[in-house]
């Protein structure tokens, strides 16, 4: 894309792009830290670190939101610039929420110290395995966003992060396993909370893919059932 006649506009847009990417990397690291915490169990020092590092993520959201506001107010963006700013603003919100879910998982693990993988029909799923594939999916979604790669975004939405997708199936299997295998209510509850948060993380990754498609194609794919009846 060629540059704006007004150079400062380009700088501000580049800054927003960097802020989103940096925040994305940070959230992926945050998830990685949680994974490390699970591997280190029964020690729980990592979980405190995870809970604390959420503050950094929130701070990043605030900064990116400021850049968004400033761009909207001062440049009155249109076209792809406008879509880029709107998409960035939405992605930042998704990332912040992923951060929150990671904290929820860290909290439950800190309290219960439970982490039992479930094996069903030869396939083993666990909070750790879902988290590992979640990190992978998030990184791919962010890469697609970075590269304007609408095909990857679509493919991910369809195959992995949709409700029928691989990730969701694994999360369902985990919940099913919990129901059958865990004895104490407390244990089941904690495991169910984790599975639920893992699903929410998946939803947010799904949304990031939608925002990518909106950015590139200008099409809002979030709720295909809603008809556009806007009249000017």
């Amino acid at each position: 894309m060629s540059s704006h006649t007004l150079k400062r506009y380009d700088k501000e847009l580049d800054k927003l792009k960097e802020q989103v990417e940096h925040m994305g990397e940070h959230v992926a690291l945050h998830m990685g830290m949680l994974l490390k915490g699970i591997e280190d169990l029964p020690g729980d020092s990592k979980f405190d670190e995870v809970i604390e590092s959420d503050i950094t993520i929130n701070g990043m959201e605030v900064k990116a939101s400021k850049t968004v506001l400033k761009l909207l107010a001062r440049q009155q963006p249109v076209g792809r610039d406008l879509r880029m700013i709107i998409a960035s603003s939405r992605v930042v919100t998704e990332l912040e929420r992923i951060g929150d879910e990671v904290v929820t998982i860290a909290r439950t693990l800190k309290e219960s110290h439970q982490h039992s993988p479930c094996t069903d029909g030869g396939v083993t799923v666990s909070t750790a395995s879902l988290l590992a594939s979640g990190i992978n999916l998030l990184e791919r979604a962010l890469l697609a966003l970075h590269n304007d790669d609408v095909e990857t975004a679509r493919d991910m939405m369809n195959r992995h992060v949709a409700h029928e997708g691989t990730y969701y199936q694994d999360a369902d299997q985990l919940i099913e396993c919990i129901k059958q295998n865990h004895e104490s209510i407390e244990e089941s509850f904690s495991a169910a909370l984790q599975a639920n948060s893992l699903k929410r993380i998946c939803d947010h990754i799904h949304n990031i893919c939608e925002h990518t498609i909106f950015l590139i194609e200008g099409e809002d794919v979030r709720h295909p059932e809603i008809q556009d009846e806007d009249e000017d």
Partner: protein
Amino acid sequence: MTTDTMDDYEMNEEAKSIEDEIHELESEDTETVGTPLLSPSKSRMTCRNVFVYYGEKMAIDNCSLDVGKNEVLSMIGPSGCGKSTFLRCLNRMNDTIDICRVEGDLKLDGQNIYDPKLDVVPLRARVGMVFQKPNPFPKSIYDNIAYGPRIHGMVDNKTDTDEIVESSLKRAGLWEEVKDRLDAPGTGLSGGQQQRLCIARAIAVSPEVILMDEPCSALDPIATAKIEELIDELREDYTIAIVTHSMQQAARVSQRTAYFHLGKLIEVGQTDKVFTNPEHKLTEDYITGRFG
């Protein structure tokens, strides 16, 4: 309900689909992307294959564009791209420029406006014009408005004239500010007031279409907002085509936007589409400020 919408209602499905077919066929011989053409029931003015020359120099190169009923159409594009030239074709203002030659098929309500037998004076009442620089006549506020209706024989007594003056000034949102000094010269008003006076003058002769060429470029934000509000209100009764250099203004007031570049009509579409997701790269570059 106006007769137009009645027509739409009464048109049966079959007639509609035939109309759509014609519409699609016609769309094929233009290079413009988007929706430059409208169905006959929706359009007030139709322009097909328009070329304009100043001497040897071509200023408009094969543009086809319809202006809809009750719509504000904005025309945008870099300086010198031909916006004003195209706008002036719509009421034959180019006739006043000796070296200017217009070719093509231009119609108002199906009537060829370049028909040699057509009288341009009533045409310019039906298709009024407001210019960049407010240009009130060197007469009183009252006479500025009364002049048109008088020469077009629309009024022959004082009561009727008073009524047109009042209603036009009200319509243009100027009445309250000038009702106590109708005899004062129009040129003594502020720039924004003068521009609303010119709009009132255009309205006074009951036009169907109002053409505006950068009507707010000399106005402050408050006067601009008043004109924009007025444009939005006038749309209920008139068709408006506006040339503007302000992207925000085009985005705010128009329903459709046309982008011109070097005499060619590049893209026409619903304004929200053009400003959020334009199809043509030239449009995108221009509206986002990546031009030149």
